């Protein structure tokens, strides 16, 4: 049964997409590890880490596309779930530092010693175990999304109002995490990581492994999203997006559907954040900044919402553009470029890149079919009557 569901979910395009991702996931690390540094095939560790970061962003974009593109829930605070997943991973990495910290305290992370904290706060307990931290990566964003969604969807908060309160959510978390007494390192956040599962986070081998895992996570996330959107559940999501009241009058419990997909999406964002942190080596409260969440929404809009592959493509392209622009003379103008891009996409490519290509392709094949059938005359004359 599971095999049948997966088969239904993966059409030719989806399989091609997964194969491409798998190839990137294998080739990039190999080109970093195998060729000598002088070879023209060699990819620097910097590049691997950079691309690994993009893959995490792509997973975040995917999670946004699932709720925005298919269910019409525009979350402008999805960065919060990403950051919470990142913090859960960061806490594990902090606990791995042990006596190698500046203050060489066996249990307390440096910033706690610095703040004269006598002991570890309760909510830091357990984070020395990877399995526990990994559970928290899913559980914390998932639980927050569940509670938030429970109230928001039951009260039927929709559209722009929902977007505004998601912004407020991430903003409030940012303010909280900026405080030293919140217990997560204040504005410095968590950094200076040493090991992950006993491997040095800086080592090329570890970086390559993290890159591969990120690619794998993205493939898994994509497959899960495809399974959802190709099921009847996915059709109900689209129905909610296009005519929520109608869906309710058909007897669907709209808030349950929204809550489920929103929580799942938050868990995906959490995983993305957790993979992001060891690759960039730091997590701080600025990840909660509302601007980050809005940027992630722009990736999806550029790639094409409601397409999944578009979300991934959008995240990769916009972030590559960002890296390109912010590392040259154009650096001061990046925000103008980003803003301009959003305006241009909204005006000229409202379906996004993948959405536009897809639409064009579908129209062309329909046109062909019409030519083939000698027009649609036959199918144009239905009229109902009850016999």
């Amino acid at each position, binding site marked *: 049964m599971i095999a049948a*569901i997966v088969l239904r979910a993966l059409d030719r395009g989806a399989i091609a997409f997964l194969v491409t991702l798998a190839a990137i996931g294998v080739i990039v690390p190999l080109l970093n590890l195998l060729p000598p540094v002088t070879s023209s095939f060699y990819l620097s560790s910097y590049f691997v880490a950079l691309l690994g970061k993009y893959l995490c962003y792509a997973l975040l974009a995917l999670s946004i596309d699932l709720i925005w593109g298919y269910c019409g829930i525009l979350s402008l605070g999805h960065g919060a779930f990403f950051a919470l997943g990142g913090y859960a991973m960061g806490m594990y990495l902090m606990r791995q530092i042990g006596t190698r910290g500046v203050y060489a305290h066996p249990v307390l992370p440096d910033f706690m010693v610095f703040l004269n904290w006598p002991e570890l706060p309760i909510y830091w307990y357990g984070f020395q175990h990877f399995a526990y931290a990994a559970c928290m990566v899913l559980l914390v964003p998932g639980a927050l999304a569940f509670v938030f969604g429970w109230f928001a969807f039951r009260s039927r908060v929709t559209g722009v109002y929902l977007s505004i309160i998601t912004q407020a959510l991430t903003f409030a978390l940012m303010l909280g995490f900026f405080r030293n007494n919140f217990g997560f390192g204040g504005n410095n956040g968590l950094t200076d990581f040493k090991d992950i599962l006993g491997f040095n986070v800086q080592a090329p081998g570890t970086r390559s492994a993290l890159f591969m895992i990120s690619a794998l996570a993205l493939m898994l996330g994509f497959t899960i999203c495809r399974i959802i959107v190709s099921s*009847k559940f996915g059709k109900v999501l689209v129905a909610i997006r296009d*005519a929520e009241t109608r869906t*309710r009058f*058909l007897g669907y419990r*709209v808030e349950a559907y929204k809550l489920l997909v929103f929580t799942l999406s938050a868990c995906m964002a959490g995983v993305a954040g957790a993979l992001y942190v060891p690759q960039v080596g730091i997590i701080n409260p600025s990840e909660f900044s509302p601007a980050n969440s809005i940027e992630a929404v722009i990736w999806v809009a550029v790639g094409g919402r409601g397409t999944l592959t578009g979300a991934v493509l959008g995240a990769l392209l916009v972030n590559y553009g960002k890296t390109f622009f912010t590392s040259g003379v154009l650096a001061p103008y990046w925000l103008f470029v980003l803003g301009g891009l959003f305006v241009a996409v909204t005006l000229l490519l409202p379906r996004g890149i993948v959405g536009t290509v897809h639409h064009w392709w579908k129209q062309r094949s329909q046109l062909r079919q019409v030519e083939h059938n000698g027009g649609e005359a036959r199918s144009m*004359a239905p009229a*109902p009557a009850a016999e």
Partner: protein
Amino acid sequence: MSMDPRTTAALLYLDGVSVSFAGFRALNNLSFTVEPGEMRAIIGPNGAGKTTMMDVVTGKTKADAGEVYFDGSYDLSRLDETEIALLGIGRKFQKPTVFDMHTVEDNIALALKGDRRARKTLFWRDTGEERRRINDILDIIRLSQVRRRVAGLLSHGQKQWLEIGMLLAQEPKLLLVDEPVAGMTDAETQQTVRLLKEINRERTVVVVEHDMTFVRELGVKVTCLHEGCVLAEGTIDQVAQNQRVVEVYLGR
């Protein structure tokens, strides 16, 4: 779901229902009943409370006062839209509301009576039985030829029929149909009359309509609303001859 001992034989029972919006009394002590198997036409000038009445019955609006009972035992004022839909009340909106991005057959498939819980739809697979039911409904509403077309591309009349088809798929006990022939050609109106009569063989139907020719064609008991309460009730001829009805509505 709340279920009280049966208090009335009527399928739909409204007693003393009042609804106000910011001081405006949309429904003012409205009382009427619809018997099982009946087809009823509701007429009335704009602002008479026809749509508000449907909102109250389907749970979209809560009544400030009065009782609304379905099937004699369900207090609708305590249920929400989803629960009411699952009890067996289907609604067609004034403006045809279908899922524009879904194909015609997916629209019907989504409306088909069945388990609507999220975990069921996630692992749902189509069965021959469902396929047959979809085909039957598409035949009745004569949209079999365009089954794979997205609903957004249908003509206005086709959308109206698709929505009626979705109602049939729900297999409700009571259908509330809001202005089914608005914007239809005469031929389409004729076909809709036949369609509704056919549906009425098995189900109770309440039709809200402005079009008097259409109401006359239906040939059923008519309730005329005015300013949120019942002005007159009876056959179309009785209602049309009622002096007050002529004053407020037909005389214009």
